[in-house]
């Protein structure tokens, strides 16, 4: 474990976060806070309609994965194991380092218990559909009566202020609205390619962690809390500033550029097919020197010495032909071998890596210890994606305070309700009986 060998505090030592988030966009922020040492208490409810979708969404841990079992890849039934919500692989990767409790917020006693937890917490995070917390009487204005210094992070698709405050959104919805979806794809295709994943289910988590840590510093200094109304769509717009400003100046509509680089004199610039099935290499030629080096690597074919390709401007102007010719060369090459040869000539080139390449092959990720093995109480120890920076004095550790991957549903009820909140065994039994926890 990262930080236990010395007496230094963790970056978020002593911070407690009440985590009502679910799916991807909310849990991302609390995952990061947990990795910096915050005590993150994830609250869930075990009724099917309330359970985090990722608990019963593919992929699942294979059937042979047990608490003590080593990790071995294998197939799993498409529904996991029916009635078992503790085998979701993506959930496991999204929620490491967190404590997990069950709590029924539709029950008045459940809401009382939440208020009690909020009283001694630094922050609460949620990403329910707009208005849900207010319906429960648990919105910011209500909760700050219980804890005036509370920080409240609410993440919604559009944001809770503004014309579309009640509009609903998944990551792809916000991505489409913000303009990001449009940006991706080939100029000669009518449809955008989209992103293949929801960046806007990630970046609100990044910004959430950032703003929470700004608010936590201030809370430490003067006790003030605050309300953060995070908009998924705005986190997308932040990335489109150049297009938006250019449009105001020139009236030009944003275009798609595929993998090409219109804003610098770089060509060839793209993904080129290599030997094998769906194997590709990205090559970016930034200068005439790199172009000459590429010609040498190709053993000086006549086409490459065509005067039209001698300058960056010429290469950019004739990119279609250039790409076709370059592909004739790359398609015969082994992708990693070619990458190594081009890199040896100081040409920026990299294999289009699939998950297997990144997990089994990538020597850089291995050397840096990017994947972190963490145990899960139901499916055993599996590699979890790490935090992508090394901090010399307060390192991030995705196992957080629990030293574990994701919690099982309600795994830490006793620890949280008994050890932290001080409820007696009898009280716990009664709450369980009444379907509150």
């Amino acid at each position, binding site marked *: 474990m990262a930080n236990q060998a010395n007496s230094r505090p963790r970056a978020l030592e002593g911070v407690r976060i009440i985590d009502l988030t679910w799916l991807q966009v909310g849990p991302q922020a609390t995952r990061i806070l947990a990795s910096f040492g915050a005590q993150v208490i994830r609250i869930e409810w075990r009724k099917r309609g309330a359970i985090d979708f990722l608990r019963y969404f593919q992929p699942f841990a294979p059937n042979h994965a047990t608490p003590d079992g080593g990790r071995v890849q294998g197939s799993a039934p498409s529904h996991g194991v029916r009635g078992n919500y503790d085998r979701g692989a993506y959930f496991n990767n999204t929620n490491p380092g967190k404590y997990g409790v069950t709590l029924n917020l539709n029950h008045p006693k459940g809401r009382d218990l939440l208020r009690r937890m909020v009283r001694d917490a630094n922050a609460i995070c949620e990403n329910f559909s707009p208005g849900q917390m207010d319906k429960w009487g648990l919105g910011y204005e209500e909760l700050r009566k219980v804890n005036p210094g509370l920080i409240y992070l609410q993440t919604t698709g559009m944001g809770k*202020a503004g014309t579309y405050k009640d509009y609903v959104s998944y990551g792809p919805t916000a991505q489409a609205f913000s303009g990001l979806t449009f940006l991706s794809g080939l100029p000669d295709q009518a449809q955008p390619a989209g992103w293949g994943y929801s960046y806007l289910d990630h970046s609100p988590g990044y910004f959430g962690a950032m703003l929470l840590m700004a608010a936590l510093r201030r809370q430490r200094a003067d006790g003030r809390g605050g309300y953060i109304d995070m*908009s998924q769509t705005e986190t997308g717009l932040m990335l489109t500033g150049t297009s938006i400003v250019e449009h105001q100046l020139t009236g030009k509509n944003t275009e798609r550029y595929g993998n090409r680089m219109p804003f610098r004199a770089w060509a060839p610039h793209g993904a080129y097919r290599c030997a094998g099935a769906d194997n590709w290499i990205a090559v970016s030629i930034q200068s005439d020197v790199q172009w000459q080096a590429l010609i040498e690597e190709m053993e000086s074919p006549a086409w490459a010495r065509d005067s039209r390709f001698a300058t960056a401007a010429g290469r950019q102007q004739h990119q279609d032909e250039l790409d076709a010719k370059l592909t004739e060369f790359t398609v015969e090459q082994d992708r990693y071998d070619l990458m190594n040869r081009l890199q040896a000539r100081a040409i920026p*080139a990299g294999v289009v890596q699939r998950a297997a390449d990144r997990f089994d092959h990538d020597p850089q990720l291995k050397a840096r210890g990017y994947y972190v093995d963490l145990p899960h109480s139901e499916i055993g120890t599996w590699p979890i994606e790490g935090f992508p*920076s090394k901090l010399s004095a307060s390192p991030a550790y995705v196992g957080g305070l629990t030293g574990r991957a994701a919690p099982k549903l309600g795994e830490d009820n006793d620890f949280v309700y008994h050890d932290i909140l001080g409820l007696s065994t009898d009280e716990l039994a009664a709450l369980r009986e009444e379907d509150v926890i």
Partner: protein
Amino acid sequence: MSSDGNLRTSLENVVIVEIGDQMGDYAALLLAGLGAEVIKIEPPEGAPSRSIGPFATATPDPEQSIFFWRYNLNKKSVILDLDQPTALEPLKRILAKADILLLAGEFPAVERRLEQCRQFAHENPRLIQCAITPFGLDGPYRELKSTDLVQMALGGIMAVCGYDPDADRKYDTPPIAPAMWHSYHIGGEYAAIAMMAALNFRDLSGEGQLIDVSVHEAINTCTELAIPTYIYNGETVLRQTSRHAAPAITQMRLSTSADGVYMLASLSPFEREERAFVELADQVGIAHVLRTPEYAELEKQDRRAALTYRNDLIEQVVASLPAREVFEKAQALGLAWSPIRRPEENLDDRHFAARGTFAEIYHPELGRSLRYPGTVATDGQAPHMHYSRRAPRLGEHTDSVLEWAGFSRNEIAELRRQHLI
């Protein structure tokens, strides 16, 4: 809603010295939006990001890069030629008053600057040093040559992004890097997080530290299902047009509105969404058999055919109305549908006007203001992030920053005589 919790000045006592290329611009921009003072130290010819287009003028000009304008709001610019050994004294005096030194660029350049600054960091133990490099400060790839595109390839995002394969699962289109400079966006966001964590740690301990941000790793964190699907089940996800990469080809497709706008219109496997869609189809007068025994029977006999029928219906519903109306009607029923907009279509949307999403920035040289995306959150009333100054002209703040660092006018004149500034 109370706004005493607004964060726009929460970093007002934090001074960041930013040195390097475009990998660092965005990280510093984000912290500048929370009130940090960012001093960008540039070589005499200007920072590399000044040479990135598009340009406001017909020919490239370091003062006219729209890319530079966007990523350097609120910052100050100081010219200091760090390749001259005598430039280290001014750097030392600036860093003595700084909280964060942000270095960005290829490994050898960043390593050289870290070496230059080692003594200064020793003298200012509260200094946080954040190095953003393509692959990190150690490991076998650290010296690889890279660009944004190469990073997106190695980091795994390109492999999950692109167009559908053919019926035999063969691709005739390449993997796609979804947006330009996105590797620096991801790296920048993680760098900003790491710097915030280091500030929290310094509040507790009084210590600065070194942060080593690997853009490669940052990209690796966001390919969603790709890694777990492989680690647990040994399967590879397939890239698919405007859909999430998944081990199987999924059914959803884009629809086109009556006014020719692509719409993201799909249904998640929740009953409430199907009910809402039925109501929408009924509202626009399109006949269907959804939620009838006939459809239930089709679902039982041939799930794929049932999905196709439903997707065809979605297309018809979307095609019956202009995009604006589809959007509003669907949302009124709780369907998370959206038009696929160009970024600039949001400029005049009243929602963003109400939230204060765009910061109005005056450019004296243009005699006009330009609107920049300026926040990701509000406190219920006002944006949490705040931008008020256009990107600096090269060296615009050299004198004022050196004076702040304790240099006399005579000393500044001497530096200028030596061509250091």
